């Protein structure tokens, strides 16, 4: 049976199409979910895509966090549903308190768009099981408010519990504390990532195909589950 991965579209989402395409390239069925519909349509996992939901007004992700679909998603995520938030999706997950910390304006004040080298540090999440610990990947990164911040105690906890999923290599593009590019919740089912694996899934359009692993991971994990 084909696994069904929901991709949420908020007003202002940009990367929902690419996320859905990445799901299909990995062999899954992408299911479009709508911000105003409080129904997850029995999907097996959900991707919150990048973009500028609600124009990034107030704070990135702050208004999207209260969309009808998020009520259902927060309950499901707390029940173990795998959720991947990419870029704006990561911001929505932090605003929802499904992940600790917050994402703030890049320390450089510049919007950064580059092919970014990362090191995968946790492969115990359902989104990263197809990688190896320490594996280096290159995927696009594009953000203006991608600086990951949290209290020292939370940062220590994330590192101590192996919940730093990916770290920036070569340069820290946005001032993220401890070079953190992605984290997971304690259970591991919810992952937030500032760079964009969905833009690196085929040679024609991406710098690499290194991002495909996030999508093959979740599909394999669901088949085995």
């Amino acid at each position: 049976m084909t696994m069904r991965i929901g991709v949420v579209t908020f007003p202002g989402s940009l990367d929902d199409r690419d996320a859905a395409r990445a799901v299909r390239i990995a062999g899954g069925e992408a299911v479009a979910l709508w911000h105003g519909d409080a129904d997850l349509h029995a999907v097996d996992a959900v991707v919150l895509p990048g973009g500028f939901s609600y124009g990034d007004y107030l704070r990135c992700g702050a208004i999207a966090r209260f969309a009808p679909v998020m009520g259902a998603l927060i309950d499901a995520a707390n029940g173990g549903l795998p959720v991947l938030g990419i870029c704006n999706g990561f911001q929505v997950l932090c605003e929802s308190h499904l992940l600790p910390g917050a994402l703030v304006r890049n320390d450089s004040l510049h919007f950064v768009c580059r092919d970014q080298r990362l090191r995968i540090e946790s492969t115990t999440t359902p989104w990263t099981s197809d990688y190896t610990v320490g594996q280096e990947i290159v995927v696009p990164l594009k953000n203006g408010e991608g600086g990951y911040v949290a209290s020292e105690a939370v940062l220590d906890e994330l590192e101590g519990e192996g919940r730093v999923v990916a770290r920036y290599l070569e340069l820290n593009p946005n001032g993220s504390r401890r070079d953190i590019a992605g984290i997971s919740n304690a259970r591991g089912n919810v992952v937030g990532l500032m760079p964009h694996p969905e833009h690196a899934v085929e040679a024609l359009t991406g710098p690499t195909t290194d991002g495909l692993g996030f999508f093959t991971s979740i599909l394999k994990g669901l088949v085995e589950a």
Partner: protein
Amino acid sequence: MARVVVDVMLKPEILDPQGKAVEGALGRLGLAGVTSVRQGKSFALEIDGDVDDARLAQIHELAASLLSNPVIEDYVIREVTA
């Protein structure tokens, strides 16, 4: 008609690159002695009817959830005028 103003500021320990940029510009424009600039937000709510304790409690709740993110920001309710 009541007016309630909610001010939101980044917590002191959170780097404020926008404030830093403004600080630099103030110095370049000749204002001496500025040691720090922090940039915040202000929300002016015009509300029909009285703001009683129950409504004020509701405003506090939303100030701490929607208007500010308590992970990085503090808020104060600065003004309540009937």
